[in-house]
């Protein structure tokens, strides 16, 4: 019931029903375009049968050596399309591409208050790798969980051994 396809520039003209949601940030153009230029395959959109944008995922692959990993930059689903397993599908694409790129793991940041999302990621096999203090600026600043899931290349599951101490944003590479 969902069309999953690569994100196109023109989708930005219609993604308001997703982005007007308070937890979804609308970035400057260059941000989206940079992802489209650099990691186009990681930027996928879910469209409903009536052509409405239901949600999208943005990601990238980065890091050196055994830190080479896929990263979820943004994952969002419009309110009326939640609880349909859409995020799971979108995450599956990202993980699949990361596997193909021979990444060791996939990671993402999430607000510690966003219980719905955290629960979902846990269900998808992600663990809280570490806490990043005051990662989200605001009033007040909010901490983030850095969540991870090992991919098949990380046979030892080294990437998902949780850190015991929180880190500061400037300490994450």
């Amino acid at each position, binding site marked *: *019931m*969902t*069309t*999953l*396809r*690569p994100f*196109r*520039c*023109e989708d*930005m*003209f*219609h993604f*308001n*029903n997703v*982005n*007007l*949601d*308070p*937890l979804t940030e*609308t*970035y*400057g*153009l*260059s941000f989206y*375009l*940079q992802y*489209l*230029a*650099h*990691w*186009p*395959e990681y930027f*996928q959109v879910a*469209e*409903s*049968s*009536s052509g*409405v944008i*239901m949600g999208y995922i943005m990601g990238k692959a980065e890091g050196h050596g055994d830190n080479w990993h896929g990263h979820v930059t943004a994952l969002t689903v419009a*309110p*009326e*399309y*939640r*609880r*349909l*397993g859409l995020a799971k*599908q979108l995450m599956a*694409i990202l993980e*699949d*591409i990361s596997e*193909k*790129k021979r990444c060791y793991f996939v990671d993402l940041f999430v607000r510690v208050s*966003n*219980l*719905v999302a955290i629960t979902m990621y846990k269900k998808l096999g992600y663990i809280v790798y570490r806490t990043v203090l005051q990662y989200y600026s605001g009033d007040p600043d909010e901490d983030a969980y850095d969540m991870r899931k090992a991919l098949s290349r990380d046979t030892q599951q080294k990437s998902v051994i949780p850190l015991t101490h929180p880190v500061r944003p400037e300490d994450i590479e």
Partner: protein
Amino acid sequence: MAGRTHAEDCVIERRLRPIYEWLDSGVNKKAVQEADKVLRKQPNLHCARVLKGLALLRMGKEEECLALVGQVVKEGPTDETTLQALTICYREMHQPEQICRVYEVAVKGEPGNEELLSHLFMSYVRVGDYKNQQQTAMKLYKLRPKNPYYFWAVMSHVMQAHKSVDPKGKEVSLLLAERMVNNFVKNGKIEAEAEVMTYLHILETQGKYEEALAVLDGPLASKVVHQPENFLSLHRGKYHMCLGQWAAAAAVYRDLIHREPDNWQHYVEYIRSVIHLTTTTTTTTAAEDPLVEASQFLSGVRQRAVEENSKDRGPLLGLLQLARALREAGKEDKIPQMCGDPADLLLTYIEVYGDKMCCFGDIVNFPPLIDEERVSGLLERVRNLYRVTSAGVPVDVEAVYRDLCWHQLRRALGQQEGLTAGQHQSFANSLVNLYTNTQNLAANMADTDIRPEDAYLILAAHSYIKAIQLTSPPSTSPPPPANPGEGGAGVGLEGCRRSLSTPPRSSCDWQPYWRGELKGRKRIFRATGAAQGVYERCDTKHIQLDTLGHVLALQALDSASYTSAAAIFSATLKFFMANYKDTSDPLIASYKYGSLTRIPEFVEFRETAQQFTLHFATVTAEQMLLDLTTNVSSHTQLVEALQHMDISPATDRTDWGHLTDNRDLKVMNSWEPPHRRLKEEDIAASVAADTALLRLRNLTLRLLPLQGPDPPRLYLFVTGSYLSLITRHAQVLQRVYRYTLDPAGTDTWSSETLKETREETENILDRHHQHVTALQTTPLQIDPGINTPALARLHHLAQAVGVAAILLGCCVALLRPIKLQAAKRGKKRKEAVVMRLEKALVAKHKQTNSAAAQETTAKISASLASLGGQERAGGGCLKAEEGQKGTLKATTGSEVLEKAGGGCLKAEEGQKGTLKATTGSEVLEKAGGGCLKAEEGQKGTLKATTGLGEQERAGGGCLKSEEGQKGTSKATTGSEVLEKDQIPCQKTQDRQHATTRTSTPLPGKKGPEDSRAPYGKTQGDQGAEIRASAPLPGLEGLEKSGGMQEGCRLEGCRRSLSTPTLIMRLAAILERGIERTKANFQLKLLLIKVYNMLGATGAAQGVYERCDTKHIQLDTLGHVLALQALDSASYTTAAAIFSATLKFFMANYKDTSDPLIASYKYGSLTRIPEFVEFRETLSNSLHFATVTAEQMLLDLTTNVSSHTQLVEALQHMDISPATDRTDWGHLTDNRDLKVMNSWEPPHRRLKEEDIAASVAADTALLRLRNLTLRLVGAACTLCPPPPPTTVWQLLTRRIVSA
């Protein structure tokens, strides 16, 4: 700087670092200081100089920056840091071409430098110079044979094709690209996925799908490794579809459905291919029938999903999609056999997914499949799927969702079509009850989620608004025919529609008919005859027809000025010719000519607007003139002038074609709602024959759904005669200019024009008086149908008057030299200005003790006052002419009138003893529109003339009759003041006012937002009154919904169906809903709409801000507030939104060229055409163009109060006559209208044509605004020449200053 040692580099880097740091932290002043420090040690350090320039640029000192940076560029730097800094600099100056030049020089210095070459390549990417891109890429490849470089060159060829308009060139470029790739393929040099993707892209663009399929089947396919799983299959399917290989395509998609049963696009494509297959193949046996096969396949998929209880929704809808496709293909008869009963299918789906919020959205396209007689049965069954209490309230959250789905479906199936306003209202009330009673069910939801019951509110809002729409026409009968033009508008629109639906010939016939009937102006017939000739000679019949539609629509501009239109026109042509002869000095000639041609353009437009016939006559005449001048060798300088000006009538005409291509019958649909109101008026009298038709059409009127675009602003603008006011003043200016060129000209000048101008000005002001009155009602009577249009009209009036004032100011600037000659002998006199409207407003305020709308009124009147001030500026400048009188004493008043330009007519009574008896009122009669000056001061005999009578008579607020002061201020001559001061009138006024009343503020200096103060000052004690009452505006009260609810309830008892009550209750309800569910943006968008209906922009803005729209949303969602704010005279709000919007669009350039470069770097070459297109879509945004034009007009009419300021302001604007960079043919509508939910039945849903209609109307209005701007630009160039400035510089300055 080349050849530095490493150690030196380190030192330099260390020294520069602080500059970078200050720049990064935005402390530009410190950066300059730091740079100076470095430059003291190393005066020639390129990079430090450029960085200093950059800091200066960011401080708004563009010229200094240019000087500094330009010097460095001349020295040809080649070091990386300097070049990078230069790149940033030129990017921020929006001169990306300069970056190319800089790197070209650098590369010449170091041809073997790979880094520099690749930077050069990127600099070409920024400006889209594909040819140079390609050459540079090949140079790079030769220098370093890396695959990416080679493919940069390939992609540059592709982009050349992309840009090429010539199909031949396109083909050649693509072939070249393909051959380059083929070479690589043959030699086995293809390495990366990106290269294969590029190859596929080239083949696709050329339509070589067979070859593309071969690539998918070949070894290259294995290089595609990073794409999603279905990438290859999807491409294969696409290629088969393009080749018409339906069976193969169907097989591919069937396989995809197997693998991804929930991916909807597979179903759509599969069914599409099957339908094609059935139409192309003729099979008789059921076993081979592809439809049967598809039916079996889709049933199987569905069966499996049901059995497995899977979460995939696609399988359940496959058969419905097949039914839909069959229906669209006209094979409805096959539906029962192939798909079964759609109602059953739908019910199954609702059974399974009815408890999801998305259920209705999933099935929105399928209700039309349900037979009408089965509708109620289906609804009944849906209703029985969930439990409600005895009061009809759903028992749990699941039931709420199901109940909502039922409501939505009911609406979409047309079950509520026949409801009356009252029924809609009580239905809405019941929904609000449901909302209240279900709140407890989902009390523990996360703040970030939307509550299920919110949808009740949205549904209720739709019903309320429906009720309001149904009650509005009778209860809020529009202002009585505001002017003859309004009636004319109706007829014009109708005529337009008629003519669009009739063949060209008859449309020509119609026009004179209407005009003749309506106006009894016989002139038109003559012109029509001429035009008919033109028309027949023209090949472009359909374009003309389009144009005609457009033209007739705009004919409503003004009903009373055909004569003058014709006059302007002929004057223009004559003027043209005279001008040719008079110009001896080629430079001056070209300059003057260049500027003037835009007046004809404007006039031409005017003609178009008014008279299709004259428009073409103009074009032809101009064409002929041009032919004449270009073919006559003695006029070589004119040829040069023409080239210089870059005007080409052909282009111009193409523009019109483009513009009007957009226009069609549907435009009129969108005008119908206002038009219907016109029907109520007595226009029928003149068009008896067509009332029947009119009625018929009105039957088809449809109110746009809530998510639809707002009604076009064009309508109000066009019916208000604003343009006519402006053109009249332009005409006056034209005359004045002509007079300055040839004071002894033979053109017979009569006071007629001036009189008409004045009358028109007076009329328009009179007409707008009622809108002021309309606004002064109590808040509860503020109606969607009255309030907003009244505000908008006053806003438009203010702007029109502002522009007229500017034109008059130009007249004065032209006449000043003449005055100077005559000044010595000039007589002394003085005058002041009294704005009639102001007075009227004050009077009204005194009468009104209600606080209603006072602030609004005050705001409007204040802005009017400031605009009036400009008028005064114009008017005051006109005083300059009195000086001439002395020299002209012998001349009779009428002679003088002939010589003196339009706006600057001077009553010349003083000269003639015989004329001593002339009363001020007579003078007023003669004096032109806004700029009449009563000159009684000259005549001792007239001293007694009363000022007040004249003030009453004086038009526009720019009449000054200042007799009272004469005695006291005789010493001040208008002319002296003029000489001393650039803003003469104001000074004069100031002095005079000092002696008489309170001091007059320099009007217009401040923006309208703070113009309450000047207004107050102007009006002295009365102002104080207004200020006192200002804090209690009725509209703002809306924001406090609590109090308002109270009011509503009270009011509700009295008249339950009154529109204002309803709409305010609705606002209150929505406010409450948002309060509860902050995440629900649907509620917010609805509320903005509701507030806009009331003209309560302040309140709307509050909601808008809560939506937190930014970046691209300024383009896609800006339409909900930006222009509404402007039209309701909330200039602060408008200015804030405008400036954010312009900022976004300015950044667009940089934001979209960086990714282009990234694409080349990272190999996502196939995205490049998309990026380029996206950039164009954004920069051609209609919204952007509109905001830019409105912003400039706003600036001109609110911030300019003297001619000097005008010239200065214009320097910052790119509206010199020769430039109109708007790409009229390709304006894009980027509004995201569908973001709002809607459950309308199919025939009421937002249609593409509605959107197209609103776009066409907005484009037409933009065209008008642009021409107005250009007229001002042209007018100003008649006077001191402003140097050309780009729009970017203007915007930069605006933002820097903000």
